[in-house]
């Protein structure tokens, strides 16, 4: 991570917010696409093989249409498949600036696997017309693609669930350790199930409502597809909420907040509506609900993405605060530079001293009043032109005055100590001068 750190600035709170929504957007466009991709490819390969066995035209057509539908073409695949993933990875590296967690490296692995997946997938797609000639290679490439995809998203989901449990960050070094990690498993299964569900929905949508691919309705082929899509969608929509709850139950304490339950409730409701529509369509195939169903599926994905991001942001609450402080620190350093004409950061200077004084010392000390600590004009004079003594005291305070609580050891940097000491003594002079004038 260190290399990355050099090039990334610590993000500020608003920065974090923006990132959050970009993330959601990215996942929003990415996940449905790849889900269908996985589901579609899977069934395409399955029917492809079935056809080889049973010599059934319908199967072959379906296999072919399916792969065409889901993997539209290389550019689309790249834009919807690879780019968002890349962005997501970058954003995480950005957010988790200075955090020692291997999840980000995992994301990079999964990105690589994803690329491999796509290549073999398109190989499968474009060898379809040569199917008879090179069947083995053709099918193999398809299967390989699926395997790559599954692997990629396994790593993706477990690294995400790892991000939700800072307790484990120190210990987990490679993805395999997380296989027994319940949250990871449930997340992954949740992903698979939803992808199969949306595949079903996709079939209903693209084959019956998509302008490019109108097929005559009363043909045997369409009936087959419709039923297949419906049943597929129904089964996995019914499974979806179970896994959603399981995932919820296995979430680490810190990740959970009221909203999380809200989102799950909505997701639950959506699946209820979807499954109802599916049932309705099963009862009379004339109904045309493909559009609704598919859009509802997309909505479910959005909700899930929102949910995941909320949990993630719950987890890194403290981290965000720290980042903010860090950002402030940088900006203040910049300010100092401006004020003190491009001086080195670590240089002693009164301006900085004043800032330190105002932010820290002033809480307990003031110049002429007794606060928690004694007034400076009482204690400072004994440090007159003994700056080092003053520094040593600030560095590591000792109880001097029985009338006051002992001063805590403050986590100040050397240069801060120096500057504050300088500032104080200088201030002392000015104050005393003022008094002389007033007399």
């Amino acid at each position, binding site marked *: 991570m260190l290399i990355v750190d050099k090039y990334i600035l610590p993000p500020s709170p608003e920065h974090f917010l923006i990132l959050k929504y970009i993330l959601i957007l990215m996942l929003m466009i990415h996940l449905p696409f790849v889900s269908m991709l996985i589901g579609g490819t899977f069934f395409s390969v399955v029917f492809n093989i079935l056809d080889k066995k049973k010599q059934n035209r319908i199967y072959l057509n379906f296999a072919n249409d399916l792969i065409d539908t889901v993997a539209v073409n290389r550019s689309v695949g790249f834009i919807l498949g690879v780019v968002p993933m890349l962005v997501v990875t970058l954003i995480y590296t950005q957010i988790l600036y200075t955090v020692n967690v291997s999840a980000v490296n995992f994301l990079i692995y999964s990105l690589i696997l994803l690329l491999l997946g796509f290549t073999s997938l398109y190989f499968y797609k474009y060898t379809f017309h040569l199917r008879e000639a090179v069947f083995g290679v053709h099918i193999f490439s398809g299967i390989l693609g699926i395997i790559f995809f599954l692997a990629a998203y396994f790593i993706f989901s477990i690294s995400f669930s790892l991000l939700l*449990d*800072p*307790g*484990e960050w*120190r*210990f987990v070094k490679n993805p395999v350790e997380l296989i027994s990690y319940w949250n990871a498993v449930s997340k992954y299964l949740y992903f698979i199930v939803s992808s199969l569900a949306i595949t079903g929905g996709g079939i209903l949508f693209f084959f019956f409502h998509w302008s490019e691919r109108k097929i005559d309705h009363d043909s045997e082929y369409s009936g087959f597809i419709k039923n297949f899509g419906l049943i597929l969608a129904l089964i996995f929509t*019914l499974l979806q*909420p*179970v896994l959603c*709850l399981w995932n*919820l*139950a296995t979430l*680490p*304490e*810190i990740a*959970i907040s009221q909203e999380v*339950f809200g989102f*799950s*409730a909505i997701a*639950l409701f959506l*699946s*209820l509506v979807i*499954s*109802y529509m599916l*049932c309705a369509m099963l*009862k009379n195939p004339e109904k045309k609900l493909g559009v609704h169903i598919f859009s509802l599926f997309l909505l479910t994905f959005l909700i899930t993405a929102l949910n995941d991001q909320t949990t993630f942001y719950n987890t890194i*609450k*403290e*981290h965000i*605060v*720290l980042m903010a*402080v860090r950002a402030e620190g940088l900006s203040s350093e910049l300010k100092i530079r401006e004020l003190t004409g491009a001086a080195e950061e670590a240089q002693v200077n009164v301006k900085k001293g004043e800032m330190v004084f105002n*932010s*820290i010392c002033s*809480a*307990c000390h003031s110049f002429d009043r*007794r*606060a*928690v600590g004694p007034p400076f004009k009482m204690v400072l004079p004994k440090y007159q032109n003994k700056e080092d003594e003053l520094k040593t005291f600030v560095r590591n305070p000792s109880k001097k005055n029985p009338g006051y*609580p002992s001063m*805590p*050891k*403050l*986590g*100040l940097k050397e240069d801060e100590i120096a500057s504050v000491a300088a500032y104080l003594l200088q201030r002392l002079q000015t104050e005393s001068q003022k008094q002389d004038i007033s007399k």
Partner: protein
Amino acid sequence: MKKHIIPIILLGYFGLLFLLLIGLETYWYLYEKPQSQPIAFSHQIHVLKMTLPCDLCHMYATKSISAGIPSVSKCMDCHRAIATDKPEIKKILKYWQNRKPIPWVRIHSLPDFVYFSHKRHLKMGIDCSECHGDVKAMATIRKVRSLKMGWCITCHKSRSAPTDCLTCHK
């Protein structure tokens, strides 16, 4: 009846799941949700802003099994003078005047059959944040580690600390 069978089944199924969801929420609400403290004490202000060290208040951490929480008089030491106008600070004053200790809600608690020594862990050079998270950044204290046995064991193993049951169980 026959035509309503499907919606009924669906509703039943989802109703069940919904009940489960509510159950989970209740569990979380009762046992895991960080509860409101009698005084809205902020570590963020004291540690992050004022850069006070942990052992200023938790003074026994290096000496004893329990880290110790500051006595009310300790709070008063500073808050006789600082921010005395703030409502939360006024609360401290009230407790102090009524000679009542502040009933903080315990966030990091271990079952009574567990022996845990702050001293031992700090002497092994383990940072507070390993178990308590970035407390300095917390506006309200919360539990960021499960503090469950599995977690303890992972860490003990990774540092090759003893894992005999008796190390922690009493």
